[in-house]
Each structure stands twice: as C-alpha cells, then as structure tokens.
C-alpha cells in the first residue's frame, strides 16, 4: 500500500521557514536556573527562566526578575555554566549575566521601533520547564517602553527572545498581562547594555 502525500506549495514553505526559525532561535536561547537547583534536564521545576546570548564572548541578557541570586546558565548544547551577574535593573526588568565562553551562537538584534502592528512574532523559552518551546503570534500593540504581543507565554518564557519574521530579536519576554505577552523592546535592552557595560 502506498500513500501519496500532497505538498501544499504555499503552506509547506511556510512550515519549513517557521521550523528553521525556531531552530535558529533555540540556539541563542539559554535556560537560567538558580544555582544549586536540580541538575536534571527538562521536567517541571528545572528552569526558572530563559535568556538570550547577546554577545559571542559570554554576555547573556535576561529579566531582572529571573536573575535573582546566584544563577546557572544552560547553553543550547546542554552545557551548564555558572553565571556572574554584572548588571540588574528591576525598573526595566533587565539583567546582564556573564558566562565563560567565546564564539557562542549569538542573536541578531532587531530594531524594535520599526515593528508594525500585525507583524509576526516568535518566542522561545522554557514554559513550565519545557526546554526551548516555541510560541507564535503577532504584534498586538507596540510602544517605546514595552511591546504587547498576541502570543501565549507561560512562566519560564521570562527573559527569552521575542523575534520577528526575519529571526531578529526585537524583545525579551517579560510577563503576561490580561492574556497578552509583554516584552521589553530590544532598543531598551540595547540601551541598557550600552549604559551598564561601558568599558
């Protein structure tokens, strides 16, 4: 018996593109866990949040509410790295962590001020301890201080990347308000990094 699968010329490339994007984003997404927490991968109670590799030499950005106390960063290849908290701003809900490393896969950072309402968005994080789960949605409303997205997030998405259809990181997911995902815009994060890490 042979089954013939028909490939839709429109939705098939769409599905392929989305899958490719998810894989690319997963590579630059890290787990952020409290140090001393259970070392086992996955499962509930593992990850408390996510982060984005911002610089190939070990700079990771996450939310301030995720980086409380001593944390451990788990890279996409599964290697855990102790992290040093170098900057934290609860007002903007941002924190910068430094881990040992170089040539780490790094996110391409987009311009959050160029976002259009209705544009597609992809989020990667660790909701409910699932490692690097993808959510898709779109820009619900865009502002200077935060981005609202029509996209389902869960605890564990915090600090993870929100990316546009080109895979550029345009925000860091921070919270859910009234069913909407709220993210810190990439331009705010960029400014934070510039201010805090001037050398």
């Amino acid at each position, binding site marked *: 018996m042979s089954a013939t699968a028909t490939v839709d010329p429109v939705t098939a490339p769409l599905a392929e*593109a*989305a899958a*490719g994007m998810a894989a690319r984003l997963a590579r630059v997404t890290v787990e952020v866990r409290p140090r001393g927490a259970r070392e086992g991968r996955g499962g509930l109670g593992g990850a408390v949040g996510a982060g984005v590799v911002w610089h190939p030499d070990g700079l990771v950005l996450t939310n301030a509410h995720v980086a409380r106390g001593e944390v451990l960063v788990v890279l996409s290849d599964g290697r855990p790295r102790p992290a040093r908290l170098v900057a934290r701003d609860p007002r903007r809900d941002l924190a910068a962590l430094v881990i040992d490393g170089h040539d780490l896969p790094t996110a391409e950072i987009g311009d959050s001020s160029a976002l259009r*309402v209705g544009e597609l968005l992809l989020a990667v994080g660790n909701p409910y301890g699932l490692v690097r789960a993808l959510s898709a949605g*779109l820009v619900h409303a865009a502002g200077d201080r935060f981005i609202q997205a029509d996209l389902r997030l869960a605890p564990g998405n915090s600090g993870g990347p929100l990316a546009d*259809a080109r895979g550029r990181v345009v925000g860091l997911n921070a919270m859910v308000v*009234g069913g*909407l995902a709220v993210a810190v815009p990439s331009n705010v994060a960029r400014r934070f990094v510039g201010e805090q890490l001037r050398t």
Partner: protein
Amino acid sequence: MEALLSLSNDLAGAVERTAPVLVTVQARRHVPSTGIHWRPGVVVTADHTVRRDEDIVVVTADGRSLRAALAGRDPGSDLAVLRVEGLGSATATLGDDAALRVGHMALALGYGPRVSWGVISAIGPRWRSWRGGEIDRLIRLDLVLYPGFSGGPLVDGSGRVVGMNTSGLARESRLAVPMTTVGRVADELLRTGRVARGYLGIGMQPVRLPDPLRAQLGLAGDTGLMVVTVETDGPAARAGVLLGDVLVALDGTAVSDLDDVQAHLGGQRIGTTIAATVVRAGARAELSITVGERPRRGA
C-alpha cells in the same frame, strides 16, 4: 524565511489598510468598544457595548472626538448603528463572508489599532441568537477578543472586512456577525430605526409530552412549551392563553422549543393572526393570537 516574511508583511499590511476605518466608541463606562466606519457617515458597532442612547462619542483613528447619534439598535444581532459627521473618507472594504472556510487565518482588530490573530474555528448555517436575531451564518473564531474588541472588524486573509466581532452573542465562545447580516440589519435600522420582531407576550418552558397524551390527541412532537408567564393584556392574554397551557403547534406546525416559536415571529407577522394549538387540561384547544410587536428595551 521568505515565506514567513511575506506572511508577516501581509498581516501587517492588512492591519494598516483597515486601521483608518476603526473608531473608538465611548458609550459605556470603563472600557470603550470598537466601531467600524461602514458607509460614509455610518458606524456599526456591537449593541451590547452601547449602554446609553445619548452622549455617545466616537474617536477616529487620527484622534478626533466626534459626536455620534444612535440611528438604531438591534439586540437580536447585537448591532448598533451610529450616524457621525466629520469622519474621514475611508470606509470598510468588505469581503465575502460566504467564502470563509474553517482553518482560514483571520485577524480581529480593536481601536488603537490593536490586533489579535487566529483562525476560523467553525462555520455553520443560518442561526438564531439567544436574543432572537437572525444571523445569516455562524462564524466561530479561535482567537482572543481582548477588552474593547467587541464591535471591531474580522479581517480575512486578503485584508477585507468579513464580520463584526462580538463576545455578546455567546457566553463561551467568540463569534463574528457576518457582514451580510450587518448590512441587512443596518439598512433596516437606518430606514426605520429598529428591527421589528413579532411578540406573543408569554414566557414558556419546554416540557415532555407523555406518550398516552400524544397518542390520544394525535400530537406530532414529543415536546411542548408550557406557558409559565403571561403578560397582562399582551397578545396571548387577549387571545385567551392561560398560565399552564402547553403550546404544541403554531399555524399547524409542531413547536418544541423557543427557536421554533421565534421562527413564526418575523417582523412581517406583526398585526396578523397566528393559529396556536395548546393542550389544556388534557384536551386540545385552538386559539387565534394577533401577533404584537416586541416592545423595545426601555420602552
């Protein structure tokens, strides 16, 4: 990646093209609702969000506050029509709601503009809302209607307005009133200020008819409608309907639920007589009711 990018651009483009026809409707306390600039000078919105008949203000997409006059409302289809002077030239580009299929991507828009994305989750035939309105097509949505989204447009994949979203017609699910219905009802409201519906002036509850009684009286259905309230001096009271009568047929057609009854009470029946068959004290009785017009809210 190209496929994703072109979808993204299409979605954002659809929002940008529709945004100029969105208005904020301020006709209730707290959260305003959304309206659609449907035809020049005419805004349609969800009736349940228009909580007052006067002091209604709409705010245009470019931020101007304008006074709106309520031209009419139809709670049955959850539609209110406003006349507004000074709106911009952009009116809604309408799509074909009959062409919608389950699985089609759709956008719901709210004033701002704000947007919600999802799919058409079910399509059904003509149905009657719990408030008695005739809706040409059931359009059920798998997307979130955020606060203030009721009254806003449902936009199809090609960026056209195919419905008006509302959370006011079903408790558990999000629906859109197809633009076919919006157009038909809005035309009637603009012409006469109301959508007339027939009225009997009784409250009823379905009851099972015992088999021996059905056999004895030759009744077609196994369910009837027991009269549990009778409006004093209403059409049914004047025809002699009594509390406890069980309505089994109208114009010789068996009725077993309120939908069946509503189907006999279109606006064109007002002032005509309808033959009602009731079971009273174990016997059939035939009554002739002159259909009245359902009083309007607050009237």
